[in-house]
């Protein structure tokens, strides 16, 4: 079974984000493998352990994104592809999906796995667009992978009020939630092994794409600070905290 996992190198989510003009500042900011993607890597590794095959990581990003791919390799993925090109700076979801699809299509695949949404952009629309470019179905918000055989995946998909069991023919795109598994730590052995695993770096030209294919059309018109919600009274509990909250609730006519 050939499994591709989309991984993203993002600014460390524990550091407050900054803007660089109309884009998220990425230069000089400590980057990490998107924590949401670790669940995708883990899901792929478990499927490989059960079914055999190969796990390929694919990422789009600057040179620094090698770090994120390498982290996935040290968890146990077999190889990585990094699409890096200056023309891709600031790419939107449509461009990202088109580029990832071009890279993934070069080889046969059974499954493409991604996180539900990136931690820095959190729109969650890229996987659907990617699935359409690949001409395959998608099941998003997978919280349990029940079974996968050569031709079908059976998964539980979260809904607003519960979950649906979905049967999907392969190849397909799946996005997995953080509830789907417990990602393994990269062992020392894994980290050493990752250094020897193939990590192919490709440009747009290698994928047969031109500047027109990746032109970013959606533009930011302006950024303005939102009206701030003012912080009210914050105090250390000295035993009267509960009473003060109850007074507040009374004032708000809740009691």
């Amino acid at each position, binding site marked *: 079974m050939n499994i591709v996992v989309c991984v993203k190198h993002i600014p460390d989510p524990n550091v407050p984000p900054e803007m660089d003009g109309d884009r998220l500042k990425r230069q000089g900011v400590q980057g990490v493998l998107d924590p949401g993607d670790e669940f995708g890597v883990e899901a792929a590794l478990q499927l490989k352990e059960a079914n055999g095959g190969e796990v390929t990581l694919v990422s789009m990003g600057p040179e620094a994104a090698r770090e994120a791919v390498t982290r996935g390799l040290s968890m146990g993925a077999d190889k990585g592809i990094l699409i890096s090109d200056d023309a891709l700076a600031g790419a939107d979801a*449509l461009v990202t999906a088109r580029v990832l699809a071009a890279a993934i299509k070069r080889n046969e695949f059974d499954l493409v796995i991604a996180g539900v949404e990136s931690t820095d952009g959190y729109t969650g629309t890229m996987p659907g667009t990617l699935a*359409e470019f690949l001409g395959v179905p*998608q099941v*998003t*918000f997978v919280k349990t992978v029940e079974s996968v055989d050569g031709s079908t995946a059976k998964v539980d998909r979260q809904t607003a009020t*519960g979950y649906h069991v979905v049967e999907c023919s392969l190849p397909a795109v799946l996005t997995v939630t953080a509830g789907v598994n417990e990602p393994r730590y990269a062992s020392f052995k894994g980290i050493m092994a990752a250094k020897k695993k193939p990590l192919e770096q490709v440009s747009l030209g290698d994928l047969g794409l031109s500047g027109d294919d990746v032109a970013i059309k959606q*533009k930011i018109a302006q950024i303005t600070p939102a009206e*701030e919600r003012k912080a009210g009274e914050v105090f250390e509990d000295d035993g009267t905290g*509960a009473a003060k909250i109850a007074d507040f609730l009374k004032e708000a006519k809740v009691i």
Partner: protein
Amino acid sequence: MSKIWVYAEVHEGKLDPAALELLTKARDLGDTEAVVLGAGAKEAATTLGEYGASVVHASEDTTYDDYIAQPHAHALNELISQHSPDLILFPNTYDARDIAGRLSAKTGSTLMGNATDVLSVDKAQTAIFGGTQLVDVDLEGSPKLVLVRPKSFEPSASGGSATVQDVTVDLPEDVKKAKRVERHEEQSSGPKLDAAAVVVSGGRGLQEPDNFKLLDELASLLGGAVGATRAVVDAGWVPYAMQIGQTGITVKPGVYIAVGISGATQHMVGMKGAKKIIAINKDEEAPIFSIADIGVVGDALKIVPQLIEEVKNRKG
């Protein structure tokens, strides 16, 4: 006059009210029509008309209920070539995200996600960094595609009525590949979370799943509903239907009580529209305190039982 479409969802035969919020906004921007696909579409069309859709493109075909995203994107793409709308507004739901994502690849329009306002036919707004910055985006493509966060607009009826046009798009076999075979509901008791006047919500600070019982008791005393953060839902403490935030439900109650919640962006975007926010957390640096009207730094497991008693006393 621009032609604005609203993509309306039906779940188990019932119209998702998010479409009514979008129609209310769309009326201000141009001629408004709706698309609704699946069982219950015709009945939904009546309501959609009352909220401003002059035409409703409807299909009762249950293929749309059984299969995920592909049939809808296929049909929308066909309808677009027949009717040439300028802008399509989608609710930011699980299904509509997938459908709009696929449609973006078909039409070559850049899809804008997470919009919190639609400023004109070619401009929409989103909030980033936990809602502290507003970003106006020039939309692109034909038609322009926007996913709008729930509760961005207050729905109000216009008293109109819609002409129903049957959607007669052939659905080829290759769009029927991801099929729902079972449906499971995990409904909680009490008022519906997204409609409750008071929401009591818990996070990691509650330390263990059993302590959610304290929130249940407090919420029922206040006539409210109980919510949770993604962290505790992912940890399996409470069902997903209770999740408040970017993924999950958006709430705008009169009072929101955040218990043991630090205030990650993912959570804050789902609750910062509350009229009053009360926060209880051990860590005085927790971001939730920056938006709280009243914040108590302390042990939630000590304060909540005291609060339950205080509320009981005041209720007499």
